[in-house]
């Protein structure tokens, strides 16, 4: 009996050592997202600051380029985080909320609906990877992988990124080891400032999206689920569309989202309608002809958003709290 216990302990020790080794390999081979594709760091950098986060913004790249948490802090002491990766679908956003609530319940969740215009079949592995590789293992992550992965992809490749990225040994650099356990944040609470400027075409913004403008069932399902989850957990919800000078939108989307918002008695705002109030100038405030906001546009929009949230939602003012302050001051 004693020998058997000893044997079992030996096996457990062996498994632990192998897991440590495999974990190290995972960290070494996963793309580092430090010097390029930095939005790949957004998900993982949330966890150390999760307990100091009162407002979460979920959405796609339009969010992480337009909402600067430093401005929200400076204006009204709002502590926030952009859990928004490039091409982040509504289902990934839903699981980002579920994952965030699991770590630390926020006061308010703001859901950007820009990406709702894409269909149920939208799959883009690099984007899914960037959103999920940094997510801590949990049932939410497993469900999120299931909801997001393409037909040819395998769950195991997401759980063990080594399976997906092991062939990177051919392009291995010292940075892969240097940044394997890199802890220093490369985003500012999920915000990635873009200092470039490329003016949008002049003229008034007119939406010209063609074809079917019905929001796909999967998008509707996860949007509803996100609202219901927040409602059940006592978290306030706001639906919004980040301002952008892009014609790839339709008023039909606004109408459908508004219907859902009314059903749950929550607010939906398309900030494109408030361009003048915000003070956005698409000849200087965009890095890519209006698809996203640059840092100048982000400052304007974030300041406006900060005021709007303070006036319309119950969000804590943390301006006197040093623990919160150090997340924003000097960054």
């Amino acid at each position, binding site marked *: 009996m004693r020998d058997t216990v000893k044997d*079992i302990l030996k*096996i457990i020790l062996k498994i632990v050592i192998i897991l440590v080794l495999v974990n190290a390999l995972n960290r070494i*081979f996963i793309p580092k997202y430090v010097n390029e594709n930095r939005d790949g760091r957004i998900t993982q950098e949330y966890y150390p600051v999760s307990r100091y986060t009162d407002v979460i913004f979920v959405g796609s790249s339009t969010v992480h380029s337009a909402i600067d948490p430093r401005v929200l802090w400076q204006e009204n002491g709002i502590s926030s985080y952009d859990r928004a990766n490039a091409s982040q679908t509504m289902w990934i956003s839903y699981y980002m909320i579920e994952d965030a609530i699991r770590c630390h319940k926020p006061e308010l969740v703001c859901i950007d609906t820009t990406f709702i215009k894409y269909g149920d079949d939208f799959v883009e592995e690099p984007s899914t990877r960037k959103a999920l590789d940094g997510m801590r293992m949990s049932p939410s992550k497993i469900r999120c992988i299931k909801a997001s992965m393409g037909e040819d992809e395998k769950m*195991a490749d997401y759980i*063990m990124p*080594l399976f*997906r990225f092991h*062939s990177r*040994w051919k392009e291995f650099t010292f940075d892969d080891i240097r940044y394997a356990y890199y802890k220093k944040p490369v985003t500012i609470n999920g915000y990635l400032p873009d200092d470039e400027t490329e003016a949008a075409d002049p003229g008034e913004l007119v939406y010209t999206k063609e074809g079917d403008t019905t929001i796909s069932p999967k998008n509707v399902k996860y949007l509803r689920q996100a609202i219901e989850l927040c409602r059940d957990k006592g978290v306030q919800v706001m639906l919004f569309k980040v301002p952008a000078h892009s014609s790839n939108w339709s008023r039909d989307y606004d109408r459908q989202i508004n219907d859902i918002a009314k059903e749950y008695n929550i607010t939906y705002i398309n900030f494109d309608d408030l361009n003048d109030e915000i003070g956005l100038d698409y000849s200087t405030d965009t890095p890519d002809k209006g698809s996203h906001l640059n840092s100048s546009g982000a400052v304007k929009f974030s300041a406006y958003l900060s005021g709007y949230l303070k006036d319309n939602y119950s969000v804590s003012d943390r301006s006197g709290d040093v623990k919160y302050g150090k997340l924003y001051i000097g960054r």
Partner: protein
Amino acid sequence: MSFISIGFALFVTAALIVYYTVPKKCQWIVLLIASYVFYAINGVMNFIYIAVTTVSAYVCAALIEKKGTEQKEYLKANKDSITKDEKKSYKAGIKKKQKRILALGLILNFGILVYLKYADWSIAYINLFRLSFFGRTDFIPFKNFILPLGISFYMFQTMGYLIDIYYGKYEREHNFLKFALFVSFFPQIVQGPISRFGELAPELYKETAFDFDRIRSGFYRIMWGLFKKLVIADRLAAFVRETIAQRDTYRGLYILLAVFMYSMQIYGDFSGGIDVALGVAEMFGIRLHENFERPFFAKSISEYWQRWHITLGTWFKDYIFYPLSLNKGILKAGKFLREHGFEKLGKRIPIYVPMFMVWFTTGMWHGSQNRFVVWGLFNCLFIILGTEFEPLSLKIVEKFKLDEGSFCMRAYRVFKTFWLMSFLRIFDISSDVPSAFNAFRLIFTDWRSFRLARVYEELSLPKEDFIVAVIAILVMFIFDLIQRKGSVRKRIFTLPVPLQWCVLSLLIIAVSVFGYYGPGYDAGSFIYGAF
């Protein structure tokens, strides 16, 4: 469920936990359930075939035994009342009945195998015949059967059992479920080894205590198998395939390199798969028969076949070669020739005819295309030539005073055997017999055009992969060399613990990092899994 999948690893882990948790007398039941679950996961339709084989073999064995018991009881009851001749005649009658039962079992089972494997091959020839002689273009459609998982392996194993029961080699297994486990034991069902009842049954039905060393040893073997399969075999597959497919463009040394690499690929693939099977079985405390014994160090073709796919070779030897050698008709034919002045030929007939049959069926076993049959017959031819020219070879050795035991002579024989067998494998990688001959001819042309850079850039074997493949092949050969002096794993386990960890870590890193798997790769399933 592939051997190379997380699913399989979890499946084995779960089975091991249950196996070592239940009372020891129930362990074989866990193995049976695991085997059938494994089989069901791979396709429920597979069930029907394995069930037919299991039930038919069980019933036939029971009937054969029943006839034997009847005989014993009859002879005992009539011990004093029957004459010697009556006894002999009665025994012959019983043997005949037993033979009929055996034949029924064999025809039913091999009939299924032949039908599934050769239906399309036969249809192709029937269509050709009808077109050539009657001008008929209403072709019979192909059946396109998908072979049930491991059918060739479990079929041969079970029919071997039935033949052994007929010859009275073993007592039959009375417990149907235990017998079902013998047929379906999951680690070996995909690609062997083909076990004998006498060896496997005691291992399967015994009670096994948990032992860390055995688990560790099995794990090392699995990792070594994965190394051969993922780092070597799958890395080379695309290069071999593309070079042979474009043989008119990439001639000479390109084909020679592809032939060499294919030998490495198939060895890595098949022996790697066997290592996984044996490693998994070892974790359950079950020892399976080795299927490889450093085949590339064989000094003759006969020796090679004693070292490569050992269990299939011994199956053919025991159930085809020996029975045919002792066949009255063949013996009579040999005797007839000896008495009519063909002394040498008469002596060889009882050996060469069965050998021809063995190689013909070996070829057929490997696939339903003509190229496999030709491959088998070439093996047979080379073995016969080796035997016939042995006296001449000995004379040469004697005349030039060559030392057979010297390193150079041994190296020469190993080299010669390796390349002969490698060249024969061209039939394996070509689409048909003329293509194989064409590829062989092209080896000897245009050597000057060879550029390694073209291999890297145009033949799906980039420089980095080429280097990894060469290093991995060297490692494999070094391990094979060390293994001549005993188990490598036992040597590793005598090392200080930190060194053991270094070895294991290197193995894990080699497999997980340099393995050819995951998205973007076309990691093939095991080549022998298709047989």
